């Protein structure tokens, strides 16, 4: 195969990161641009390198991130832009508030404990000394807070990538059990809220009036203060992973779980309305919300400890099945999108 042929083949491979419907409309056009760029490189007398047989790493990264971003945005395209933008900002603010509380009180001031404080047979307590940082949780929480600050400072795109990193990190920590991590029901709502926050266009200091950016920060602070004021400061047995958990984090996760459910409910209602024209997306959104409804009900109810311990694997299964159903829903929706009638959105 010639150098040009190999270059084109690599470009086509990279473009597969974009959704099929996008490629049907755009692939030949963007491929033309890539090949023009390749020709320009070959014709440039200042280019000292041999003819390129693949795009630069910068173009690799650009197409990979562009493709993933396009796929992700299409997943939520059934929602009107205004709804998506508001969900994104609410998700960001709520997650940042919860993260602030947990990183300050859940991890540092009153850390998660990786072993229970047991009472020995002679009546004394074990001599377990907790390290300053107990789990990898602060990485996730830090990303959240940084994303909020960067977004309000005008770097919304970077904020989106931090949120995507927070979501990926939270999911990864839930799966990779080697690294100490907060309970699954702490990570799961944070991951979902981070996901929701990357579906819309986040308003930045440049695109909002000055008082709105200050308002978002004030709202974050107020939510964090509310969680603190309502928190039970006693340690509670964490039935999921044998941790003790402070009441601050407990309260924070309850708040976030409810908020995520409320946001999911908005998606369900909007999806249901959209489905009146034949869209089936609300089914996918519904099954997304179900695992978190299940998690929230469990976290609120006083279920027997042993029974709850046995549900850890069950929760993971629910999450995985939920994700698989969402993926199936996405394919279903793509088929729908190819029908002319589906281009009408009753909410827009």
């Amino acid at each position: 195969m010639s150098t040009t042929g190999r270059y084109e083949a690599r470009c086509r491979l990279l473009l597969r990161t974009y959704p099929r419907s996008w490629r049907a409309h755009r692939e030949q056009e963007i491929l033309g641009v890539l090949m023009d760029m390749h020709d320009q490189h070959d014709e440039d007398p200042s280019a000292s390198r041999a003819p390129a047989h693949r795009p630069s790493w910068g173009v690799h990264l650009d197409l990979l991130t562009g493709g993933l971003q396009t796929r992700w945005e299409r997943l939520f395209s059934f929602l009107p832009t205004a709804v998506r933008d508001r969900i994104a900002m609410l998700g960001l603010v709520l997650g940042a508030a919860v993260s602030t509380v947990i990183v300050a009180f859940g991890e540092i001031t009153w850390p998660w404990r990786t072993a229970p404080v047991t009472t020995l047979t002679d009546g004394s307590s074990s001599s377990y000394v907790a390290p300053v940082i107990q789990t990898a949780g602060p990485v996730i929480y830090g990303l959240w807070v940084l994303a909020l600050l960067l977004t309000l400072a005008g770097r919304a795109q970077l904020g989106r990538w931090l949120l995507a990193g927070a979501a990926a990190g939270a999911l990864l920590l839930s799966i990779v059990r080697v690294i100490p991590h907060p309970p699954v029901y702490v990570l799961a709502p944070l991951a979902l809220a981070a996901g929701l926050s990357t579906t819309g266009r986040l308003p930045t200091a440049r695109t909002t009036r000055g008082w709105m950016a200050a308002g978002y920060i004030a709202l974050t602070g107020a939510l964090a203060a509310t969680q603190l004021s309502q928190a039970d400061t006693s340690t509670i047995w964490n039935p999921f992973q044998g941790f003790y958990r402070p009441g601050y984090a407990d309260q924070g996760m309850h708040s976030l779980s409810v908020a995520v459910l409320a946001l999911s409910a908005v998606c369900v209602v909007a999806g249901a309305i959209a489905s009146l024209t034949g869209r089936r997306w609300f089914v996918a959104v519904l099954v997304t919300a179900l695992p978190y409804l299940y998690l929230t009900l469990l976290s609120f109810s006083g279920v027997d400890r042993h029974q709850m311990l046995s549900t850890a694997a069950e929760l993971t299964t629910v999450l995985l099945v939920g994700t698989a159903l969402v993926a199936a829903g996405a394919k279903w929706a793509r088929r729908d999108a190819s029908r002319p009638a589906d281009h009408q959105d009753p909410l827009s």
Partner: protein
Amino acid sequence: MASSEMREPTFLLLTALAGQPQHGYALTQEVAHLSGGRVRLKPGTLYAALDRLADEGLIALSGEEVVDGRLRRYYSLTSTGAGTLERETQRLRANVEAATVRLRTHGATSAATSQVTP
């Protein structure tokens, strides 16, 4: 929520299209030229921006052709896009004029201060 400012790549893209309809590769070249080589749009970024601008009604597809077996689509500025670019240009011009006046004053003050100081 009021959009009060436009990002530089968007401004350059709209400026590039203000002259005449352009295809994707020509747009990357034109943006690089307009920015003195500072802004070099890669294809993924370019098409994400074109999709967004088309959604917002600032640009529109104006034609297509096949050159050497390669599909080229031409984009043009809509009247909404021209209005948006005009407003952004006025905003930037006002900023430049304000800064120029202040800098002139600053220069005069500095010169006077240096003459007084022994």
